């Protein structure tokens, strides 16, 4: 199968503008270096030809931008969605966060994105150029010259544990539709579950104490689209700008994860953007895992219109006391 590359997407994006399918395109824009790619809205073919780019560092999930972008005027927005982004796309549609009519979605197959921090850890500082052929990553640095790294060694954590390579929503597909794959994404959650209570507390105390409360995890999250977040609302008694006490750190992250429980598609953006490298996705995955165990398997965003587990119930649901035990011992 041919890997989707920049040229193919540029051609497609330009074509969508030229034939009037859309009047703007949400895509990725070249940065200063080969890896610092910014999501961008393209308005002209010229701009697309000059600045559009697609490659192994285009991890950003563009689906959330549709909420804002579809509110601007009548025209259609074309958007490129990787498989995991299509789940967010469906979830946003389920919650009626944007008008489907105003969007032209192009699904693109994906084999996993690279993580520049992993590249830097292996290749060292001073990266002048980095390119990949789908198998190897060629890195040139200021101090150590050229190095070749296996792409599989620098794949982002969230992509190693990818749950599905299937594009579940699109108007047009580039590459293959892909398939839902078996993943080991709950392994780390299970590992933490099997720790002792003190170890678990220690692990999270250590991770969450790094939080600087920049809100990047919340702001990037495609499930966090409230018009006014409870943490920004002075009347909510939850507004708090800084982790003034270790309690506040825990509170923020518990509530953040709880508010997206059952709606989180596990796209992994929260952990990707965290400047302090807190494994926030583990909190979300714990909820997903528990939901699967307690109420049957559920994948948010797999279908438009599915009922999220937390706004649903059955009369025979598990009791909280048992649930806590089950959530702990499921893998023991």
């Amino acid at each position, binding site marked *: 199968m041919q890997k989707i590359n920049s040229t193919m997407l540029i051609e497609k994006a330009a074509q969508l503008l030229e034939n009037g399918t859309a009047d703007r395109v949400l895509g990725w824009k070249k940065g200063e270096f080969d890896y610092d790619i910014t999501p961008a809205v393209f308005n002209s073919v010229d701009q697309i030809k000059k600045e559009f780019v697609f490659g192994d560092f285009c991890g*950003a999930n563009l689906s959330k931008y549709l909420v804002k972008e579809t509110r601007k005027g009548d025209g259609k927005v074309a958007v490129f969605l990787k498989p995991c982004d299509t789940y967010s796309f469906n979830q946003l549609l389920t919650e009626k966060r944007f008008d489907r009519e105003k969007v032209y979605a192009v699904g693109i197959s994906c084999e996993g994105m690279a993580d520049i921090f992993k590249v830097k850890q292996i290749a060292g500082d001073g990266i002048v150029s980095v390119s990949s052929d789908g198998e190897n990553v060629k890195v040139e640095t200021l101090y150590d010259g050229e190095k070749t790294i296996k792409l599989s060694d620098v794949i982002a954590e969230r992509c190693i544990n990818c749950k599905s390579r299937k594009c579940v929503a699109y108007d047009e597909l580039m590459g293959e539709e892909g398939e839902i794959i078996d993943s080991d994404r709950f392994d780390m959650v299970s590992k933490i579950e099997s720790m002792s209570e003190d170890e678990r507390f220690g692990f999270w105390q250590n991770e969450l104490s790094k939080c600087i*409360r*920049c809100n990047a995890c*919340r702001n990037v999250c495609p499930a966090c689209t409230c018009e006014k977040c409870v943490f920004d609302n002075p009347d909510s008694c939850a507004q*708090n700008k*800084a982790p*003034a006490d270790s309690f506040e750190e825990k509170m923020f992250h518990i509530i953040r994860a709880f508010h997206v429980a059952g709606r989180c598609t596990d796209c992994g953006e929260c952990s990707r953007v965290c400047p302090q490298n807190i494994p926030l996705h583990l909190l979300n995955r714990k909820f997903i895992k528990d939901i699967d165990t307690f109420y049957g398997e559920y994948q948010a965003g797999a279908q438009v219109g599915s009922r999220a587990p937390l706004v649903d119930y059955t009369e025979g649901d598990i009791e909280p006391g048992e649930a806590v035990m089950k959530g702990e011992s499921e893998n023991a």
Partner: protein
Amino acid sequence: MRKCSLQNLETVFEKISESMTLYIPADTKDGADFTKWTKGVQMSQALNTNRSAKDFFFPQTEDLVEFKTEGKNIEVIDTRKESEDFAVFGVRACDVKSFDILDRVFLTEPYDSYYATRREHGVIFSLACTRPAETCFCGTFGINPAEPGADVSMWKTDSEMFFEANTEKGKEILKKLESVTQSADASDVDGQKKKTGEIMKKLPLSDLSAEKFGKGMTSKYFDSPKWRELSATCIGCGTCTFVCPTCQCYDIKDFNSGKGVIRYRCWDSCMYSDFTKMAHGNSRNSQTERFRQRFMHKLVYYPDNNDGMFSCVGCGRCLNKCPISMNIVKVMKTLGGEDNE
């Protein structure tokens, strides 16, 4: 100039920590960060710390004052305790410069005693860079990473660490360290300085110039249509402001603990939607306006009020950390680009 062998660096740490708390950059699983030194903690080889050194003087949260209320009465209590001396080891030239920038904000009248006390009690050992990264652009703002400054400048070679005092405070502490250091010749580090200078020229951002920005440029850039495009995908988080060594905006908040009200201040970000929100409106309603505020402040407003000094030091943290990789370099290149002339 003094020096010690790298093997003996630990004795220097020990000596310093006899009289004050010492923080050194140490490796964690996510990169380097300033860590309180205790025996066995090793100094990191990393170029710079994740979080900037401003935290030592302007912490993310700090209590200002406490109130006890009883009926209609209020008692105001200053809860501050006597500050302790501390030393920060291995601060890079960019972060050193950031103290100058913060000083101009906090130490001009009316003077901020919380910040000032920490400045008085802190000794800074700066460390010259030898391997700047591609994201470094301190040169743009006239910073020489081979002459880091602050109380004591340090240069690290393969086998030795060199110390040079720049201030009275620095001289005093080097005097205390005489028993664990040897005298050295200033020319011993000339080679390193020269080499660093050459590398600086080769950095990908070495051609970035701040010439087009500075004092009196408000009208030139304020209404630029480029702001909309640049900020189009900004998610409005506070990452850039919180990792920035020069961002100094803060909020003052009250926390009712049930036993009293603690008034504390915490970092705030001009990128946040509630930053300028008042009871009857918001002067910066859109993300574009908030985005513009941040960069205009660094590149124009601050220079306006501070003799042309920029409030960016080119440390590159925002380049590494921004969730969407939008940063001051892209802003400067886009706004200062030819098509804006």
